């Protein structure tokens, strides 16, 4: 996939500042292929903050409705504002192969995410969404707004990760000042997204199969894939071991008391390093990561080597939810992960696929040539109204 095939969209003021960091970082470290970034907001104050660079464009939408003053935290205004200018915005977006969308839920402009994702889907543009949840101290109104917007994003996205901002700060919050904390959170998100983008755009010695990833995202347009991610960087001797330690113990992979790595079905490991990356380091890295995974996990690896990264090793891990694993709440026992056996079918073909079928390992119910184990709504081509 070429750089122009991927568009990074940030939606809202908080996302814009992270987009700025990503764009600047990409310009600094990876000058060969500028990242296409589209910053969307309803508040024209963002124009003053963004340093204009190659590939970055800023659009204020809904000016007729909002006068460029923002939504005041009302997500319905964000949604309405997007609808007002949907035609223009979609022309601006064009026809990339993949959109990476970042939005910080809790703010009003994030309300535009749902109509945006719907239009992307209608145009066959695959998307990966990073949606953040506000800090608890940000107040009840922002929490409530996020709780309304997040499910609509989850319904329309191809793949989505919801990132509680507090989880990005875990372990570092006590030592940082307030401004440093916000910068730290923005950097963590920017690093994760940049690393994913890097893997998608740059060829490496071990090429990440981007088309395969895109097919994976679009395999079933009905319900989004959910994933969680963490990144780690280290320099000097023992950097591979340090990265493994940081990743496998990352609080990002601890969700509701469960280890997402241990229960993931598919994992993407993206490595960004200099030309000095050694194979034995890669081996250490993959062995360490695989130890944290279950034996049936499908791991996709991509490496990008850039001279500007000599001496440094940065790794991002995206863990996609095992769709045959669910958290089951047992009264009095808290949350328990229920893991089911995977059948023969689980390995067949490109089975990044989806839900483990209950009847994979049993003789099918075949009557008059019809396989009745296949869902009725599928055989009858019934479109479910969500």
């Amino acid at each position, binding site marked *: 996939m070429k750089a122009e095939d991927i568009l990074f969209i940030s939606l809202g003021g908080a996302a814009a500042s992270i987009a700025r960091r990503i764009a600047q970082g990409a310009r600094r470290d990876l000058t060969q292929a500028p990242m296409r970034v589209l910053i969307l907001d309803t508040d024209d104050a963002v124009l003053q903050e963004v340093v204009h660079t190659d590939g970055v464009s800023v659009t204020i939408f809904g000016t007729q409705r909002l006068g460029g003053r923002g939504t005041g935290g009302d997500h319905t205004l964000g949604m309405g504002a997007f609808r007002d200018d949907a035609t223009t915005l979609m022309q601006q977006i064009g026809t990339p192969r993949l959109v990476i969308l970042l939005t910080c839920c809790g703010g009003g402009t994030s309300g535009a995410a749902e109509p945006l994702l719907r239009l992307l889907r209608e145009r066959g543009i695959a998307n990966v969404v990073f949606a953040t949840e506000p800090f608890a101290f940000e107040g009840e109104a922002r929490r409530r707004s996020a709780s309304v917007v997040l499910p609509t994003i989850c319904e329309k996205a191809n793949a989505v990760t919801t990132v509680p901002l507090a989880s990005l700060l875990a372990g570092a919050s006590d030592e940082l000042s307030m401004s440093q904390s916000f910068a730290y959170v923005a950097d963590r998100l920017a690093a994760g997204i940049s690393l994913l983008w890097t893997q998608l755009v740059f060829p490496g010695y071990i090429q990440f199969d981007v088309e395969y990833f895109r097919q994976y995202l679009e395999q079933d347009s009905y319900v989004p894939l*959910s994933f969680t991610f963490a990144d780690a960087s280290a320099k000097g001797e023992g950097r591979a071991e340090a990265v493994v330690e940081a990743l496998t113990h990352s609080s990002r992979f601890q969700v509701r008391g469960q280890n997402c790595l241990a229960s993931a079905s598919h994992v993407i490991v993206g490595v960004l390093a200099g030309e000095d990356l050694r194979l034995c380091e890669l081996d250490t890295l993959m062995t360490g990561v695989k130890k944290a995974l279950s034996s049936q996990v499908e791991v996709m690896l991509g490496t990008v080597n850039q001279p500007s990264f000599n001496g440094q090793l940065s790794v991002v891990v995206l863990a996609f939810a095992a769709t045959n694993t669910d958290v089951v709440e047992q009264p009095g026992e808290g949350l328990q992960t229920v893991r089911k056996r995977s059948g023969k079918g689980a390995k067949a073909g490109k089975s990044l696929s989806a839900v483990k079928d209950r*009847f994979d390992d049993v003789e099918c119910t075949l009557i008059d040539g019809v396989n009745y184990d296949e869902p009725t*709504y599928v055989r009858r081509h019934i479109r479910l109204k969500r």
Partner: protein
Amino acid sequence: MAVRVLGALDIGTQTTTLAAGEVIDGALRVVRVVSTPTHGVKKGVIRNIGEVTQTIRKVFAEMAKHKIDLYDVSVSFSAQEIKTVRRTGTKSFVSLTVMTEEDVSDAQDAASSNELPNSPDILLQRFQQRFRVNEQSVETPVGMKGNLLEASVLEVLAPRTAVEALRTAVAQAGMHTVDVVFSGCADAAAVLDSQLRSEGALVLNFGAGTCDYLVVANRIVIAAGTLAIGGHHLSNDLARAFKVGQDVAERMKIERGAAQIQPDLAGERYSVQTMFSADRTVSVHAIQTVTTERVNETLNLLRTLLIRQGVALSDLRGGVWLTGGTAALPNIVDQVSTVLECSCRLGAPLNVAELPAEVSAAPYRYTTVIGLLQWHMRSIANDVRKPSFLSRVRAYFKG
């Protein structure tokens, strides 16, 4: 006199149930019923003997906590490969002869299959059909005059491997299988009284793995079989539709599934909790579309199978009696009535002196295991009445 305790074991796809009963003054009293989730069974068939053995041990241990130790048990059986075969045997006479019981027995023997030790199928039950004397259909030919007696039987056959696996699992759990009974027969034994058997009725057990059915008309079993579609297909459809795990889908089915769309709920949204993403919601209308389509299709398929087997649904004045776990699905009774064009009611065990409280709450879930107890009770009564095999051999040689 010591009261004999009877045992019945129903190893369903979802739940294994063990019942203990006793016969007092000719009436069955169900003493205790205990259940546990089944492991190692899919679509009614044992996939893992070890897991099933563990399940049986667990349920027996549960029963033992109530100070009831069972050894002999009747066990139910259900599987996709259940076959029903109708066979006819004749006895002809040179001249017009008055038919005796012995003649009837000879004609029946001629109709019955000879089961070979290595045959792939094993006979589970044999049901007597109508007799014909000189091509005239009669109910009991004894005392009638004719020179050709035809007897036909309906045999329920099951794959030997599957039945042996069942026996092995029970034996490994330290129990003895007295009898293996087709689930449909057990349900009918529990649910139908003699009036319904005369009027004609269909007993449909819509379980988790299979739909077992048995049709009785004029006191004769005219059709029986199994459709390997059950409640698990509903939850699997939901899992596929909404990309959730089987447990979440099962809960979704129980909490919002229905056999007909419920207008008062269809506008609502159902909250689904998954591990990686924020809690999301799905439309109840979409959930009910998935379940209603499956139920509707299954019932229409059943209707087609019954018609192929010569069942005239409109003649079943006793209606349809619905049992099994999926019978708890809202509106399913109405949907069965609509598709099969018969009145439908939830089945409950009849002719039982006393039922435990856990059974009374949802009796349609326990008809199989209680039917097994009744079957067991009748077998004991028949054994007392019937001459033993040895005495029959002695009688044969004595002439």
